[in-house]
């Protein structure tokens, strides 16, 4: 019953790693010194506001363009010069799913199956049937939702060890979204697949992600386990007369109109809340992930 014993990846190299990635586009910095590391078998949810640089970070980590500074590694190899063996183990779904519009879905799967040795044809066929997508219709004539699903099947059917999804659920209805999350969760838990997906729908992350990373204006504000975000962080509200005692290092701090202060505090290494939490009139609320995100991102 313990899922991890089923399939242990044959390499212990970090599936995905970024070291000091920075990138500027037209003079504007998009990524500022990002250090990120995924553990094998983990599911990392990358959240950020629109334009925070999620897609750019993902593309830089896969070596799809050359960043201004920093390096990225996939399975221990430099992302810009991946070997065939590494490429076989990656599945990537970009944000725009309009690849190969001149082929049919069946043709695209047939073509890619020749390149990926572990391609699961039965799974691809089954999923196409279940989602009722016409396999012999030229993809230019499919709707955007169907094309995104085809792209998802394409990435999943190659049985990759690292799945990278860029806003995968944008065009999916709730049922398909739930199915996708289920698929991701089971693969991560049972086959040890590492998953990185970016989204701005927070409720999906709470279900499936084992780790969360907040990207805000090109900086990584938070990177921790999902359960930690609920257990380690809380919102502290101090009335106006106690505001001066607010702790010094907080993840965010807001001053309200009446002088009171609310800030996001963290437990220290011993699991204790800062002193300010015990002040008279102080109130502490547990934070859901969405609230935490909104607080930090402001």
């Amino acid at each position, binding site marked *: *019953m*313990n*899922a*991890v014993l089923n399939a242990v990846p044959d390499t212990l190299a970090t599936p995905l790693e970024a070291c000091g990635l920075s990138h500027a586009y037209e003079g504007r910095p998009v990524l500022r010194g990002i250090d990120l590391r995924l553990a094998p*078998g983990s*599911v990392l949810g990358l959240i950020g506001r629109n334009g925070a640089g999620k897609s750019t970070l993902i593309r830089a980590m896969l070596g799809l363009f050359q960043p201004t500074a920093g390096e990225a590694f996939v399975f221990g190899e430099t992302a810009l010069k991946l070997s065939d063996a590494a490429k076989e183990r990656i599945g990537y779904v970009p944000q725009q799913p309009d690849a190969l519009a001149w082929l049919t879905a069946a043709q695209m799967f047939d073509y890619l199956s020749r390149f990926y040795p572990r391609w699961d044809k039965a799974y691809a066929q089954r999923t196409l049937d279940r989602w009722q997508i016409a396999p012999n219709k030229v993809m230019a004539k499919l709707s955007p939702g169907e094309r995104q699903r085809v792209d998802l099947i394409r990435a999943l059917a190659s049985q990759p060890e690292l799945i990278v999804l860029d806003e995968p659920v944008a065009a999916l209805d709730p049922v398909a979204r*739930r*199915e996708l*999350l*289920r698929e991701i*969760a*089971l693969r*991560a*838990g*049972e086959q040890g697949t590492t998953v990185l997906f970016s989204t701005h729908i927070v*409720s999906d992350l*709470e*279900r*499936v*992600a*084992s780790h969360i990373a907040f990207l805000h204006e090109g900086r990584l504000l938070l990177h921790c386990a*999902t*359960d930690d975000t*609920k*257990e380690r962080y809380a919102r502290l509200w101090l009335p106006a007369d106690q505001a001066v005692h607010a702790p010094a290092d907080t993840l965010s701090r807001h001053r309200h109109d009446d002088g009171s202060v609310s800030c996001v505090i963290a437990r220290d290494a011993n699991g204790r809340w800062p002193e300010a939490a015990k002040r008279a009139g102080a109130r502490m*609320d*547990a*934070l*859901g*992930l*969405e609230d935490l995100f909104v607080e930090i991102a402001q």
Partner: protein
Amino acid sequence: MDASLLTIQPASPEPIYRQIVEQLRRLVVGGQLHAGELLPSVREVAGFHAINPMTVSRAYSLAESEGLLERLRGKGMAVAAGGLAAHSQSQRLALLEPQLAAVAQHAHDLELPADAVARRLHKLMGA
């Protein structure tokens, strides 16, 4: 037991694994789960609720370490023998602790006297 017996609220401030453990505890103490009853596999629960199997696995391990569940070889997780009887009144009262604390806090905010609240509670419990 069926995986649908558990309800998962991802948006709640309580981590999912803790929600599962609490619900299992409530089910055992409340008598819906009998001693020796087999629990659904990690995969079933994870698949039903679309959550990470590691979370379910963590919940089961935590419940096992608290003596709520036990692992049967070849069959999976089952409710620990001697379930209900082993829970003394004080342990069951401890389950109610969060709700009682919340009621106490609200009563304090509304500046209600303790005995008025206690009398109302008495009536509601039908004793």
